């Protein structure tokens, strides 16, 4: 067992899944691990898919080393921009990528810690099995994060509709 595999196994054991706060999504795709790794870790690729449509990524910055910056600026359909900056925690090329918004680049604690992302990649036949885990802080943090998403126009419209639907 190599050192990186040992580290990866240790992290698997550490990251016990909390169904109330965490999400795990797993996909198998007929694309080599090197491309999956590039799509997750290079800004020029990340901007093409990281924001769920109709949102977009205006800019991204990734300094691929522990302590390095992971930053994205999301753009709403109305053109409003929402920057988010985090810190990279772990980089095992084509195997594991971990980052969090609980820290700023250089491991400085951030004001609103909320999220850690863990991406694991492994070859499967000619293709790749990859897993994205999103770990969140707590319900209170979750709710506040949800409210942040409602600043733009259609979010406000959605709030009104939810209130309306609840009153039915």
């Amino acid at each position, binding site marked *: 067992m190599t050192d990186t595999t040992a580290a990866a196994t240790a992290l698997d054991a550490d990251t016990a899944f909390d169904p109330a706060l965490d999400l795990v999504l797993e*996909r198998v795709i007929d694309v080599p691990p090197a*491309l999956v790794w590039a799509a997750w870790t290079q800004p020029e690729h990340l901007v093409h898919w990281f924001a769920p449509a109709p949102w977009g990524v205006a800019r991204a910055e990734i300094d691929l080393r522990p302590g390095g910056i992971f930053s994205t600026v999301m753009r709403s359909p109305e053109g409003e921009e929402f920057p988010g900056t985090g810190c990279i925690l772990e980089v095992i090329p084509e195997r594991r990528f971990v980052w969090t918004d609980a820290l700023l680049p250089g491991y400085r604690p951030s004001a609103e810690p909320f999220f850690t992302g863990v991406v694991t990649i492994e070859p499967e036949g000619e293709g790749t099995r990859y897993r994205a885990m999103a770990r969140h802080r707590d319900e209170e943090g979750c709710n506040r994060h949800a409210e942040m998403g409602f600043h733009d126009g259609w979010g406000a419209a959605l709030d009104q509709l939810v209130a309306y*639907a609840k009153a039915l």
Partner: protein
Amino acid sequence: MPFEMALPSFVQHLRVLEECGLVRSSKDGRVRTYRLDPEGFRGAEDWLEGQRQTWERRLDQLDSYLIQMKETRHD
């Protein structure tokens, strides 16, 4: 006019809500009627479910993009 928002903006917002599965619409002649989709709203009320939908959509986009990357490199 019952709303402050202009009709084209309203239609744009409704289209986004429809993409998110919160409303459904049907067209009868010149009239398009929007109805709330209760399934979608159960999802919207559950915070984590909302996050899951975001991630599913994000990874759908990633997979399409990866296929594109692979084809470009092989050409």
